[in-house]
């Protein structure tokens, strides 16, 4: 008689926490908060007409062919060297007459083949962007004494105005 009156034993909830923890850790590990990274580009406005010509000394012609080989200003060169060629052209430290007289006049003109691989194209574009970022970083150090990321809106605008990244893309050629 005594036994029947006794209430049934409580189910231990102590291990519930462990089970929930296991699930939680599984989700923490399995979900990847992946942030996409890439080369951000603003395409030029669509314009159907004759292309405007820029003075030859202001334009750096970069061509990339179907075998992903690079030609800069008529000379064969390597993707790895592009990071040095661009600042040398844009900033023109030696004052060459066939290079732009002022950095904000510089235009990077790229032309690719229809058979150029996307890999080489993106790499080339990212190198152009990164060399501009480096130039801007140096300018910001010498002008404001601060790093690029610490500049306020007005100063950042100023840097961009002095070193605008002008990339023109010609119609791809077919070979």
């Amino acid at each position: 008689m005594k036994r029947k009156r006794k209430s049934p034993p409580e189910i231990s909830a102590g291990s519930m926490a462990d089970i929930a923890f296991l699930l939680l850790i599984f989700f923490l590990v399995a979900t990847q908060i992946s942030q996409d990274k890439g080369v951000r580009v603003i395409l030029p406005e669509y314009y159907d007409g004759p292309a405007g010509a820029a003075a030859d000394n202001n334009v750096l012609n970069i061509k990339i062919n179907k075998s992903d080989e690079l030609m800069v200003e008529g000379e064969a060169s390597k993707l790895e060297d592009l990071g040095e060629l661009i600042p040398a052209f844009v900033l023109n430290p030696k004052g060459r007459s066939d290079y732009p007289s002022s950095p904000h006049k510089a235009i990077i003109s790229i032309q690719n083949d229809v058979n150029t691989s996307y890999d080489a194209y993106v790499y080339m574009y990212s190198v152009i962007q990164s060399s501009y970022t480096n130039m801007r970083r140096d300018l910001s150090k010498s002008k404001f004494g601060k790093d690029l990321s610490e500049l306020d809106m007005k100063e950042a605008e100023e840097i961009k105005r002095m070193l605008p990244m002008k990339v023109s893309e010609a119609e791809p050629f077919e070979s």
Partner: protein
Amino acid sequence: MLKRKKKDMPAVSTASLPDIIFMLLFFFMVVTVLKSHTVKVNFDLPEGVDLQKVVNKSQENHLYIGSLEDGTITIQLNDAFINIDQIRGAMIKIKNSYELGEKGQANLSLKVDKNIKMGIVSKVKLELRKADFRKITYVSVRAEEE
């Protein structure tokens, strides 16, 4: 008095602990997005240097160019396959679906296989320019430094 001291301390109840953990679990399940849409094309991302983050993920549209199982090169915009000549209309539609103030933030992530030839990418770029959808990101992975 003596009797009291001998009595055991009551155990701290752990009954509410699972509830707390479950709450955390649900929080994570809701916050993390497992997959935004099913990607049906296969692609290997290209490499680049000095990459920027894709800022506003919710405003993001995706265009994939890659190959299917049988090797045919296919374009997928968000959730559906698309032809090159349909891109322009689709992009204008997407652009119009944004609120007026948000139009400038509309961004397109291009996830393209690195072995794709530029010919097709150039055609896509031309269509995007015609649709006046000009902010794009070439999604890539960081090149290994030597």
